[in-house]
Each structure stands twice: as C-alpha cells, then as structure tokens.
C-alpha cells in the first residue's frame, strides 16, 4: 500500500532522505504546473519550485496532518506574492480596497503567458489564454480547482478566505470565461466524444485530494 504524505514526511524527519524523494516525485507535476501558471516564465517557476522544497526540508517538523499539497501550494503562493511585491513594491495585493473587494480581484493578471501555449485544440487554447487574463485570485482558484483538483475548502484555506469567497471567485471566473469566449463557448454544450475521452484521461492523472 502506498504511504501517505504524513508517513513519508515522518520518515524523512527520521533521516530517510528517500522519503522526501518520493514526495517530490508525487507532487512535482501538479505543483510545478501551478507555479508555472502563476509565474512569468520557466526559469522563475524553477526557482520557486526549488525554494518551496528547500522550505519543506527546513520546516518539515512544522507539518501537521492535513493536505500536504495544500501546504506546498501555500508556501509557493507566499513566495510568488513576495516576488511580486519586490518587483512592484507599491502594489499591495492582499489589502482590502475601499470598494470592499481586495485590489487583487480587480487587476488583470497581465498578458497571456507564453508557456500557456498549445497543448490541446483551438478552443482549449482560447480557454487557457482567457484563464491567464483573469484577475490573479480568480485565476488561482480556477487553476487549483480545475488543474490540481484541490477542493474549495482547501483553496479557501490556502487563500486565507472563506469557502463562500472561494466559490464566488470561481463563479466570477466562469462568468468572465463565458463572456470572453462568446460563440466558441457554445461548443462546450455540444462536445465531441473525442474531447471527453482525452480529457478524462487527464483527470485520471490529476492530483487526488
């Protein structure tokens, strides 16, 4: 039977370095994909990914039972925010604005990420491009939920918000995608069987909660 994340980390704390190797192997794809989609390029994603694991190594004793992937994403998220602040020191993303919603919710994430390029069909590419232009918190909810299969409760914990806010961010993201995709979106109501099959394979590869 496969060891749980907690068991592997406990083994690592007891001196078994291979246990950490198993954890890195288990989460390298979903974690790196999340980081890559939240950072401008591959080099920066690599740096953040490495820094995340170095922190795990240093702070392994702090981990208690819970979602290990959630912990990884929380560390990665904090590192990405720190980097963003260093680049744009006048911008405080987490501060509540006078309009009630955090400033971050009203900012576009920027130009489409070149790394978001073709992997699937044209509609898929358009979806990926539009996801990349979502406000950063909405984009994060969408990526964590759709790509990494993280439940809303865990997303809320990562974003230090309520589950209702996480759900609302998802709904805003969906609303914007529908509006941006317009007539292409009709395709989604009549999908071909091929698309479904291919996509289900991807789901199976996704991270189980």
């Amino acid at each position, binding site marked *: 039977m496969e060891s749980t994340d907690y068991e592997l980390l406990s083994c690592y704390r007891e001196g078994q*370095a291979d246990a950490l190797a198993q954890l890195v192997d288990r989460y*390298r794809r979903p974690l790196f994909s999340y980081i890559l989609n939240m950072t401008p390029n591959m080099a920066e994603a*690599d740096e953040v990914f490495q820094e995340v694991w170095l922190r795990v190594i240093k702070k392994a004793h702090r981990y208690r039972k819970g979602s290990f992937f959630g912990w990884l994403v929380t560390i990665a998220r904090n590192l990405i925010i720190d980097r963003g602040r260093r680049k744009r020191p006048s911008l405080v993303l987490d501060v509540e604005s006078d309009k009630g919603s955090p400033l971050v919710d009203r900012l576009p994430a920027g130009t489409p990420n070149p790394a978001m390029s073709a*992997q*699937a069909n044209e509609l898929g590419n358009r979806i990926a491009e539009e996801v990349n232009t979502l406000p950063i918190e909405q984009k994060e909810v969408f990526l964590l939920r*759709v*790509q990494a299969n993280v439940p809303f409760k865990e997303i809320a914990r990562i974003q230090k918000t309520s589950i209702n806010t996480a759900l609302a961010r998802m709904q805003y993201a969906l609303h914007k995608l529908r509006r941006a995709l317009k007539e292409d979106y009709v395709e989604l109501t009549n999908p071909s069987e091929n698309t479904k099959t291919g*996509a289900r394979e991807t789901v199976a590869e996704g991270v189980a909660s």
Partner: protein
Amino acid sequence: MNRSELERKILLAQSGELAPAEKAELELLLAQSDENMALREELDNLFLQAQNALVSAEPSPETVSRILSEAREPAGRNRILFTRPAVRLAACAAALALAVTGWFALVPDEEQPDQVSQLQVLVAMVSEEDVQDEAVTGEMEEERVRALARQLLIMEGFETEEIFSEEALLLDPAPTTLRLRNMTELHPRICV
C-alpha cells in the same frame, strides 16, 4: 433555487464537498430540468477542456536533483543553494562590523581606567544590595538611589555635592535616575 445557487451546488458536487442529502437534492433538481442538466454538462466540459489546454509541466531535472541532494544533507547542515555574491559580501561585512564593535565595547579603554573600575564597583554595589536586602525601607531605597545616581554622574565627568534642603528632589527612584543622563545639558548641576 436560482442559477447562481445551482452553479454553486454543482461546483461543490464536482469537488465532492456536498453532503449526501444535498447531493441527492441536487440530482433531483437536475433531473427535473433540461436547462439545469445543460448547466452541469457545460461546466463539466469546460473543466475538461481547460485541463487539456492548461500547461502541465515538470521542473528541470537539475532542479529536482539539487533538491534531492539538499534533502540528503544531514539535518542542520542545510544551506542556501544560490547565495548571490552580493549577499555573501554583505554578510561578511556585517560579521566584520560586529566583530569590530564587540572589540571596542569589551576591551577596556586604557586612557580611562578609572571609569571602568568605577563601573565595576557600581555594578558590584547594586548587585550585592539587590540580592542581600530585599526588604529595604523607603528611606534606605532613596539613599541607595542617590548613591547610584552620584556614581553615574561621576562617571559622566560631573562634580557632585550633597544638598539637604527643601528644594531637593523627591526621587522617584528608577525613572529619575535613568533620566539624569539626558538632563545633563539642561541642568549643569543636578540634585541627587
């Protein structure tokens, strides 16, 4: 239930966060309306399309091997892999500054041996009294503070004289004593 609420329920059902009773209620609702069912299909398909399209990549093998070699380091020997030269230089400069400051702080100044010995006497005096006499009277306490303040003023280069008059300050020991150092420029002669 409006469309937004229905969408929330569908999203929660997709992530497995809906209670069994609520899930059954949702299924009933979906079965009753083609429009509702279409919404669920639309969301399912959108997610599937997005999963295929969103970049899913792996870190470079070099990064992974660096992490693993770091993980194999014995506990307590973890180091930063990419210490920038500038940071390293700054750390060396800080360490040097600390060492120099420590040297000047700890090594007695040969030109002022009296002040150093006075300080030692003062520290010894206060420590001894604090340990031996916990139940001092208010009067004794005031005497002790006067003596302490006098010693401090001598160390600062002042001449002191005893004043026993109505104008003498009623001492509030600790804070008054501490403030004396800052008051020297304003009051060339200080009552202790």
